[in-house]
């Protein structure tokens, strides 16, 4: 991989070993990036969609807690 970025690679790969506790889940066809807290619940970090209206959906606002299932 060649990184073509203005951010120095040592910053990009800082804490590379750290475990990634983020996950992408699907809710009604909308992809959500969530943190998995291991309790069955997570917090929405980001909405991944091309539909601008999905970002107005109150159910899926960043910061909201979301049930991920057992």
């Amino acid at each position, binding site marked *: *991989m*060649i990184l*073509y970025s203005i*951010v120095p690679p040592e910053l990009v*790969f800082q*804490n590379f070993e750290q475990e990634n506790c983020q996950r992408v889940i699907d809710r009604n066809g909308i992809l959500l990036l969530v943190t998995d807290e291991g309790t069955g619940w997570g917090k929405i970090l980001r909405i*991944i969609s*091309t539909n*601008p209206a999905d970002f107005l959906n109150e159910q899926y606002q960043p910061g909201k807690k979301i049930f991920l299932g057992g």
Partner: protein
Amino acid sequence: MTINLPPYKPAQKGPGMKHAFEQQTRKKVQGSKKTEAIKEFGQIQMPQVRSDIQCITIIGQIEGHIIMSPQNKTTKYEHVIPQLVALEQSDEVKGLIIILNTVGGDVEAGLAIAEIIDSLNKPCVSLVLGGGHSIGVPIAVAADYSFIAETATMTIHPIRLTGLVVSVPQTYEYLEKMQDRVIRFVTSHSKITESNFRKLMFQTGELARDIGTVLVGKDAVKEGLVDEVGGLNKAIQKLYDLIRAREQGQYFRPQGSYPYRQSTEQEPPPGGGIQ
């Protein structure tokens, strides 16, 4: 669930679209389905609104074959590419707006996204807000028409290898090839000439600890990299203009050939670039 879109009305100005959006929302909320769902399942039905233009945001680092550490904000190609394929297939979607605020990232992933945007058959406008650096440059120029906010910047600098490098001359040739891929894509999709782009790329004295140039808003337009200085209203207006032109059969995307190829003054140097 099928969604009935109201007939598309061309020649609407910016606020008109918002109005149509609100109207549609109101109509959906009034539906009896909502009350039924509340009664039966205690579930709230959110208004389903689909806009006829869709938006892709390219933010943070562009993530390629290696997952970056969680502190990086990333745009992953496995998210963006299927989205673009879906948009190309969908009949409801008339056009696409790409909003960039990126610091660069993986060359291959960035070029993949740029190529797929270029080969889209639907009108597509890009808008650089904040920054569209490094590999963000080819993505910005891949759209039919590009805008840059007045305060936004684009950094053009050489590609470099990091980490453990096999110190043989071939390594540099490989690096040169990678760089030529980016240069050829940018110069063939924008009005900037190859010699000028190379000059900006290898400029010294511009960046504090690097080789290259930072282009701020107007400068990017002056160099021919971006088409126009503007914000969201201009970008959406342009997109609707392109959509209208397409509906009237006046617009087509050049397939397989780069739109600005004839305007580039010289061919890549013999032996240079990818064959």
